[in-house]
């Protein structure tokens, strides 16, 4: 078990965003989280690398317990890579510098080493020709692929994808999902929050439906998409498909 979540509760002021989530993820498993906007998908992912603090419950990642007051965050964040909806590339750095910077600063790699890793990953996301471009010169899909490469450069054991195609034009969704599929094929443990059901079905080992901060239903994609047991899952899927 690489991720163990027990009874996770997270508030934003008065609002309870997560109301007791329990979830275990196996090494190499691809878990896709679906659910309406505001259901707590993002919050769940953000608790895993301590971008949000949680009040109750327990998260263990690869044997390290995530401190609720986030005291051991750096240790956790080395294990967990994250890709955001809004890319969040560093606009003052070129593509290759974006990928090298944290390797040098956090992983203490020298420039040559960081460059080698960077170029390998750029080749993997099919952007070798953009190494010296600035983020502002890239399309949304290209930005997101750079963001994936940047996260992977830190050698995480787990990757979190927080609605990474939601800010993209439709014709660019495919190229980003392709990169994620490659990663799945390599056996990366991943948690993916998404609205793209076709992709969820294709890439997921397990699908989790969250609504209102609670897990309503979970199971293999065939079951969730073809034969959901809960009425709310059925309603959600009927509305979205």
């Amino acid at each position: 078990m690489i991720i163990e979540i027990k009874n996770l509760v997270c508030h934003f002021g008065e609002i309870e965003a997560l109301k007791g989530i329990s979830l275990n993820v196996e090494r190499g498993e691809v878990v896709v989280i679906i659910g309406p906007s505001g259901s707590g998908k993002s919050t769940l992912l953000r608790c895993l690398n301590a971008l949000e603090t949680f009040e109750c419950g327990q998260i263990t990642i690869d044997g390290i317990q995530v401190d609720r007051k986030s005291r051991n965050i750096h240790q956790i964040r080395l294990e967990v890579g994250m890709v955001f909806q809004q890319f969040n590339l560093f606009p003052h750095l070129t593509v290759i510098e974006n990928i090298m910077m944290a390797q040098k600063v956090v992983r203490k790699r020298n420039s040559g080493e960081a460059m080698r890793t960077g170029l390998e990953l750029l080749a993997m996301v099919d952007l070798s020709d953009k190494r010296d471009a600035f983020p502002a010169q890239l399309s949304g899909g290209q930005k997101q692929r750079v963001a994936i490469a940047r996260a992977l450069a830190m050698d995480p054991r787990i990757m979190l994808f927080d609605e990474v195609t939601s800010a993209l034009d439709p014709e660019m969704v495919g190229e980003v999902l392709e990169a994620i599929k490659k990663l799945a094929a390599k056996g990366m443990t991943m948690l993916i929050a998404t609205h793209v059901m076709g992709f969820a079905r294709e890439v997921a080992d397990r699908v989790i439906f969250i609504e209102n901060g609670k897990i309503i239903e979970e199971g293999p994609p065939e079951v969730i998409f073809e034969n959901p047991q809960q009425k709310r899952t059925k309603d959600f899927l009927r509305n979205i498909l």
Partner: protein
Amino acid sequence: MIDWIAEQIILHWDILKYLIPAIPITALITVCSFALALILGLIIGILRISRIRIISSLAAAYINIIRGVPLLVQIFFIYFGLGKLLNFDRFTAGVLAVGICYSAYLAEIFRSGIEAIDRGQYEAAEALGMTRFQTLRYVIIPQSLRIVIPPTANEFIASLKDSSLVSIIGLREITRAGREYYSQYFVDFQTWLMVALIYLAMTLTLSRIVKYLEKIYAVEGFGSRRG
């Protein structure tokens, strides 16, 4: 008529010759105090956004107190007040007073420059395992710099003008030299006209340089450097 013009030219030239040696003093006071203001301002500005409540409150208090007291009073306080205890000479006292005063304004500029950066930048850096300090050092501040250069440059020009206030404690910069010339020869209009023109020449030159710098820094970085 021609006599009068010739006389005036000679007089103005004479005044100018008297004032010129004071220009480096003004320049030195301005540069030293602004260097101090930059360092102090950056530190205070970063402390101001600290997550630790006491630290940010102390930084806010510093800013409010310094900005709420006239620079002239701060100069008196540092030279006559603290100076008596700590034995500052005029130059040190003048530089300290102007430097501390401007550090408060710069701290606010730096703070707003740092806060102008999108939250997503912090999250991306933190998600990569960077500490708060590394995030500021490598991600936030390099981006903030471009935002804060124009207002910082304005403060530099303002501090050049405000350095005239240290004439009050006897530092022989341009304004002081003007007063001395006046009290020796009793020409008031021409003396103060020359003093004003020298300041004007300096500030205009500086704002030209600033415009040029802005041009360079505006292009660098945000995507347009290579097309």
